[in-house]
């Protein structure tokens, strides 16, 4: 599966989200998501989530990363009838496990998440298991391949009549049931004559006729599931040489149309997704594209078109949309539209990117989406008239990016690299004046009729009323153009026959929050930190004009760099951060500490070892409070973290233990006002006895938080309790039991989890204190059944209980929320496997302040039209039943009627999704 991702925008998403975590559940938005008990290494994992809110989310996103990773990768959820679905590509599922966050954003700006508390710092951990041969219920995927090795003859080999021996090895195909193996030569079953012992299949056909012959091995796995047959050809005769194809091509095109209505809002999307590759042996061209009707000039690009030229195995050229990775602190998979080079000669590697991170957006497609009146900036002129301020809004600058990384690898023992990246907003990219953008004027504009205007009509109206307009063409409020320059290096080495690896990565950022005014001259720099034009930066004087000792004192003439000469690299002015990269006063006393703790630096040092079935990690990483990389805006700054963990595999990789400790705090600067320490202890136990046997999984995580406050704070005249000393215990247990009843193969999974929060200083709190943490309990039971007649079912039951605290006066109230979900899905193959009929029903019962039931039905089919062409259609409807609206004497659906039938039972969502896929 081709998957594309990007790291989401800091201002659009993270900040509201962090605010959400601070506010806790004061603005409760809830989503229903039952995490799977585990994933499978290398297999796509689809996660499902649903929201119980009556408003439809404007976006739902899945963020995932390797445990402890620096940044999240992002996948957009797709509405699929009952639920929202997002699929993590198989290559993202490794034995290290996975951490993920589900986030729904609503039109009112509120966000619901899973996990509920502090999701990005405490994402949900998912254990990933090694694969077992359990074919999924799915569409027409290829049969799983067994790792059978052809020994003789070689595919396409030419051999003489007396040299024929057909042989294959099942050494690595331990999931194959050898009793099911059949050998066909030229379509004739010769299984009775073959030998199969010790994992070696051999067959001596004797003298064969001249010409091309075919051997085919058919087999099933130990679960009696079909396995892809192994077919190859060979030629009996004189030696000829096959001319290989000089040119190969392949690809797929997938078109998808969805016609849906969700919460009364039509949602029609058409998409074409495809990829095509051309291979001329020495070079390869691969193109990915996505064309969607969601593409809009008012949004960042939704379409994707990227082409990669690969020359041999040493040079990749990317044109269009691509996702470069330098390092986690700089750019790590963020979408770039432009041009990239990756020349890798093994011992030296050069990576270069140039393009844009964001394109320009001039306005939003709504009233007040391009202009809005800032009444608080209205000025009263001497003649009594008003000058109204019309500010631009809804725009985004084109964000240009360029970067270079050069790294060397000396005999795989020593690695060294340097890298830099420049990101700058193009202030000329956005239209300074919007002639057609409409905005509203209300009663606060004196003498102008309330209504909708454009800039020209508003100007006219103001003039008529004797007022004037100030509509600046730059220096707008809201989003400011920024500039970012990041540079750094990395070192790595290995010890003890590569069992031990040590890596160090250091980076520093320069960030300018506002470049409207451009670069600052050296003379202007003089007065950056002080008001005196004295040839010194930062030098301050007392009232008698004497120099105050201890203040920063930098002679402007000593500054080697001329800001104006560097403006093409970075714009230096007073809005830059840091103004001075290092604390010069502290440098003389604590040089090492000063360098390490530079607020604009980010680094990590990591030691990894693999000894005696142990994989351990010791890591320290720190991201300074002023470190900014627009190539990875998700990076949490002002954080330092120490991690020690170990993963032990025992009993021939059947038993895994994963345990460790993490400490996280924000005390990089000595002047930290609001310290917060987070200590996490985690333990994971996984037992996988083998195919056909039950599996066991136990997770425990203890998260302690302490902000070192011992006294109450005062805000205005009020005393507030901002002390935090809490512990959250997160437990999860999962058991999967495969069993057979009659001819039906079944898989039963039981998953139980709970989160319990404890306030360690509850006895010291006042009676009216609200401890805003939510306890939760989850149980889910999943039964998948495979019937011998191509009929498969999945039955699911899950229940989640939350207790959300709030205050009723001085009384703590815990409001219970209980979601109970039942669903039954069934698939049936028919028409000689050409058609896969699918259907499911689900019932989601919500019990909280408002009781409701969501009942859904989904039905559809996949049909294989030809070898390369398949079609799929799925339709769904979900009904929302809210009995409490029956007698609440309110117009809940806004149709002007009170307590009518439409309020009690409404169509929550309905739609049809059609897909056509062609492989070539």
């Amino acid at each position: 599966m081709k998957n594309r991702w990007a790291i989401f925008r800091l201002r659009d998403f993270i900040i509201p989200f962090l605010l959400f975590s601070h506010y806790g559940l004061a603005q409760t938005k809830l989503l229903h998501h039952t995490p799977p008990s585990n994933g499978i290494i290398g297999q796509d994992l689809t996660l499902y989530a649903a929201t119980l809110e009556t408003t439809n989310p404007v976006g739902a996103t899945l963020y995932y990363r390797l445990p402890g990773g620096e940044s999240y990768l992002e996948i957009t959820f797709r509405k699929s009838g009952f639920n929202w679905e997002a699929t993590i590509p198989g290559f993202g599922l490794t034995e290290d496990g996975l951490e993920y966050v589900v986030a729904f954003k609503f039109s009112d700006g509120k966000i619901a998440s899973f996990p509920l508390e502090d999701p990005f710092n405490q994402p949900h951990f998912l254990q990933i298991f090694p694969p077992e041969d359990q074919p999924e219920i799915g569409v027409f995927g290829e049969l799983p391949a067994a790792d059978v090795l052809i020994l003789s003859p070689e595919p396409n080999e030419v051999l003489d009549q007396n040299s024929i021996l057909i042989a294959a090895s099942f050494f690595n195909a331990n999931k194959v049931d050898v009793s099911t193996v059949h050998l066909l030569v030229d379509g004739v079953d010769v299984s009775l004559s073959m030998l199969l012992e010790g994992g070696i299949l051999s067959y001596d056909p004797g003298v064969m006729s001249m010409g091309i012959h075919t051997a085919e091995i058919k087999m099933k796995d130990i679960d009696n599931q079909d396995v892809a047959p192994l077919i190859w050809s060979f030629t009996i005769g004189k030696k000829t040489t096959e001319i290989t194809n000089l040119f190969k091509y392949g690809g797929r095109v997938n078109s998808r149309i969805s016609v849906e209505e969700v919460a009364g809002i039509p949602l029609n999307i058409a998409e074409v997704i495809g990829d095509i590759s051309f291979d001329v042996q020495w070079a390869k061209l691969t193109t990915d594209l996505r064309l969607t009707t969601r593409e809009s000039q008012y949004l960042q690009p939704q379409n994707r078109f990227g082409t990669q030229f690969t020359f041999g195995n040493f040079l990749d050229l990317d044109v269009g949309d691509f996702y470069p990775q330098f390092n986690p602190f700089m750019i790590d998979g963020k979408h770039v539209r432009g041009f990239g080079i990756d020349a890798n000669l093994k011992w030296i590697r050069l990576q270069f990117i140039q393009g844009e991170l964001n394109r320009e957006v001039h306005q939003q497609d709504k009233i007040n989406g391009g202009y809005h009146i800032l009444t608080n900036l209205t000025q009263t002129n001497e003649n009594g008239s008003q000058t109204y301020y019309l500010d631009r809004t809804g725009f985004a600058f084109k964000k240009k990016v360029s970067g270079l990384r050069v790294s060397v690898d000396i005999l795989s023992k020593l690695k060294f690299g340097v890298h830099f990246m420049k990101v700058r907003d193009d202030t000329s990219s956005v239209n300074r004046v919007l002639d057609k953008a409409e905005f509203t004027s209300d009663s606060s504009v004196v003498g102008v009729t309330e209504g909708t205007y454009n800039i020209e009509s508003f100007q006219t109206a103001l003039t008529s009323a004797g007022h004037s307009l100030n509509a600046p063409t730059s220096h707008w409020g809201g989003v400011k153009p920024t500039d970012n320059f990041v540079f750094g290096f990395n070192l790595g080495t290995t010890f003890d026959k590569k069992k031990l690896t040590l890596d160090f990565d250091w980076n520093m950022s320069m960030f300018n929050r506002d470049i409207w005014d451009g670069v600052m001259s050296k003379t202007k720099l003089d007065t950056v930190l002080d008001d005196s034009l004295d040839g010194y930066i930062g030098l301050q004087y007392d009232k008698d004009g004497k120099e105050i000792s201890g203040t920063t004192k930098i002679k402007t003439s000593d500054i080697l760099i001329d800001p104006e000469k560097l403006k093409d690299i970075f714009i230096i002015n007073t809005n830059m951060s840091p103004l001075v990269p290092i604390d010069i006063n502290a440098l003389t006393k604590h040089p090492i500490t000063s360098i390490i703790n530079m607020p604009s630096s980010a680094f990590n040092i990591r030691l990894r070892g693999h000894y005696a079935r142990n994989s351990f990690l010791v890591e320290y990483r720190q991201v300074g409070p002023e470190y900014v990389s627009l190539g990875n805006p998700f990076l949490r700054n002002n954080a330092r973290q120490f991690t020690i963990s170990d993963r032990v595999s025992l009993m021939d990789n059947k038993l895994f233990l994963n345990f460790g400790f993490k400490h996280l705090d924000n005390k990089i600067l000595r002047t930290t006002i609001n310290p917060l320490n987070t200590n996490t202890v985690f333990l994971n136990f996984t037992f996988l006895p083998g195919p056909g046997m039950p599996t066991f999984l136990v997770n425990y995580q203890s998260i302690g938080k302490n902000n070192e406050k011992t006294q109450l704070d005062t805000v205005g005249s009020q005393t507030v309790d901002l002390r935090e000393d809490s512990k959250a215990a997160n437990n999860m247990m999962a058991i999967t039991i495969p069993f057979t009843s009659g001819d039906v193969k079944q898989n039963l999974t039981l998953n139980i989890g709970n989160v319990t929060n404890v306030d360690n200083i509850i006895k010291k709190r006042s009676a009216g204190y609200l401890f805003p943490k939510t306890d939760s309990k989850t149980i889910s039971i999943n039964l998948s059944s495979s019937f011998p007649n191509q009929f498969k079912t999945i039955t699911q039951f899950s229940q989640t209980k939350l207790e959300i605290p709030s205050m009723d006066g001085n009384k703590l109230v815990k409001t219970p929320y209980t979601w109970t979900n039942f669903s039954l899905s069934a698939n049936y193959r028919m028409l000689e496997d050409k058609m896969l009929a699918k259907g499911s029903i689900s019932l989601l019962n919500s019990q909280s302040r408002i009781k409701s039931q969501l009942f859904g039905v989904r039905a559809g089919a996949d049909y294989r039209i030809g070898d390369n062409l398949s079609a799929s259609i799925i339709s769904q409807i979900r009904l929302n039943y809210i009995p409490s609206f029956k007698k609440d004497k309110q117009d809940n659906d806004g149709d002007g009627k009170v307590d009518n039938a439409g309020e009690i039972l409404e169509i929550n969502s309905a739609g049809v999704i059609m897909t056509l896929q062609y492989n070539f």
Partner: protein
Amino acid sequence: MTSAKKIISSLLFLTMVFGGDRIAITTKVIGSVQYIRGNKGSKVLKKGHIIESGDILKTNKDGFAALLFIDDKSALKIKENSELIITGKRGARAIAKKINMAGGTIRAQVGKQKKGGFTVQTSVSVASVKGTDFWLIADKNTGDSVIGLEGTIMLLNQLSGDSLDVTSGLTGLSLPSGSVQSFKTDPKTIPEDPTGGQTGEQQLKIEFQDASGKKKTLIIEYK
């Protein structure tokens, strides 16, 4: 204890330790080739025979055998007048292979993707390989010579502990005196491989026929 006795003792020990695992299959036999399994006498080796760890193979004057290991398809080709014991320890994903040669000429083709180790040991030398193709000619009196065709072979002289890397185009000598040395391979010294895969000059003939039936042949010579 003489070197020969040491080898035989080692062979017997290895036979006891590793004996029994099925590790390879014979894909080609030319002339007279025998195998010995356990305490049983020698038997004629035939195409399709499954080699067990500890099997001893002997080729006579006109004999030749080709084997393929079942885990990774590593090939072992045994030329005339050779005697060796093939041992292998089956792991979960690979077989650790060890060839103990009393004498003779072999060609080992070990692919790059191979997971298990591949070691050839004589009374004088040990050759450890991975991702290589080479000939090894063992003679307890004159020493061993390793002809590198592809990849790198680490050739260790057991008597002195000296070692060197033999790469493509080089021949390494490991002598009973304990010395090891290498020099550029004389193509004439490369043994002939009855199954092909020769490194000498070969021809590719492509026949073209035009509309009038005239034929022309394009001959490409390659190594």
